């Protein structure tokens, strides 16, 4: 993403192009949606994990052997990298 934006900065015409702008908006939005979905899962999971350790919910959690759930975390640095977008490919 940052690469794409950097590219667009260098070519003002490209930035003005409507399809490129629409593409950038879609990329931004898609990235945000993934990020917010992950954030929502982590928020709910954290609340669930915390509740298991807080009285009185912890009694029930222990009695029924609840396990804390895993958070959605990115461990591999490669996954954290944003996908590259190459605008140099010409349509046939």
């Amino acid at each position, binding site marked *: 993403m940052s690469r794409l934006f950097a590219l667009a900065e260098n070519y003002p015409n490209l930035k003005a192009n409507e399809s490129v702008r629409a593409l950038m908006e879609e990329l931004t939005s898609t990235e945000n949606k993934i990020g917010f979905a992950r954030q929502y899962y982590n928020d709910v999971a954290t*609340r669930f994990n*915390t509740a298991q350790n807080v009285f009185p919910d912890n009694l029930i959690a222990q009695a029924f052997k609840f396990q804390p759930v895993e958070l959605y975390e990115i461990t591999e640095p490669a996954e954290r990298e944003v996908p590259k977008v190459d605008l140099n490919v010409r349509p046939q």
Partner: protein
Amino acid sequence: MAAANLFEQQKKNLRRTTGILVGFVGFLTFLGIGADFFLYGSGAGPGFPIATVGALFFGAASSLWALKAGDRAVLESANAVVVDRADPRQHVLDNVVEEMAIASGLPKPAVYVIPDSDPNAFATGSGPEKSSIAVTAGLLDALNREELQAVVSHEMAHVRNYDVRLMTVVAALVGSVLLISDWGRRGIGWGGRRRSSRAGGGGIFLLVFLVLWVVSLVLAPLIARLVAMAVSREREYLADASGSELTRNPLALASALEKIDAAVAPTPSIKQGVAHLCIEDPRGRVVNEHEGGWAGLFATHPPIAKRIALLREMAYRG
């Protein structure tokens, strides 16, 4: 734990909601009983309490109607039109609303645009399952993507915290109280003559009740409005906080509020009755600049400078 704290506050919000509704029902009953006593004279005999039943029925019916069709009425009164994804700016708005719906884990609200050049936004509906978010065209022009996201997150928080449902019902109940007290005041002259014809039946208790009833009839419109505004004010801070919890970006909301505040002009296409649903008071009055005192009582929103300061502090604490 900011998150746990917010969760607590939401619970407290729900309890307070119940308290406010019970208060309104009690008030309507009081007005009705008074009318039965002094206007229809059923206090003397075992007559049917027509005014009490009527007042309660009227309050319930108008609340139900507001929940069912109130959002449509509000949107129509603001000339809101459904978002047009062909327009690049509105496309961004639609995307941002979808992102915030994902972040809050709620179904996506319907998105509307109001053709007005003053920046403002509001949410309406009967709950998270049926809600709408409307923003003015001026807001789309004035804010960048992050700030727009912050404003939408604030509205989304109003939806998630059940503020939209509460404010819809409160607005309907305020309307009922206004109507019933008006009708009661008109009846006083006529009922008073009837009462004097069977004089001496009451005693001191009845006299006190009569005075209380007349005083509350006179003050009813004022009290009802004050309650509605107090409810609205306290919920703005919570919506700011839980909106920032969705975006993780309180500074964007702070700068959006600054830009909205800079445009001091009123938003003419948003009617007074919807003021408490907006991100900032559409009447563009200066009463919101100060908290406390007389001005504070009549404001639907807390002072914007204080909201911005709180958001900054939130960002500072991380």
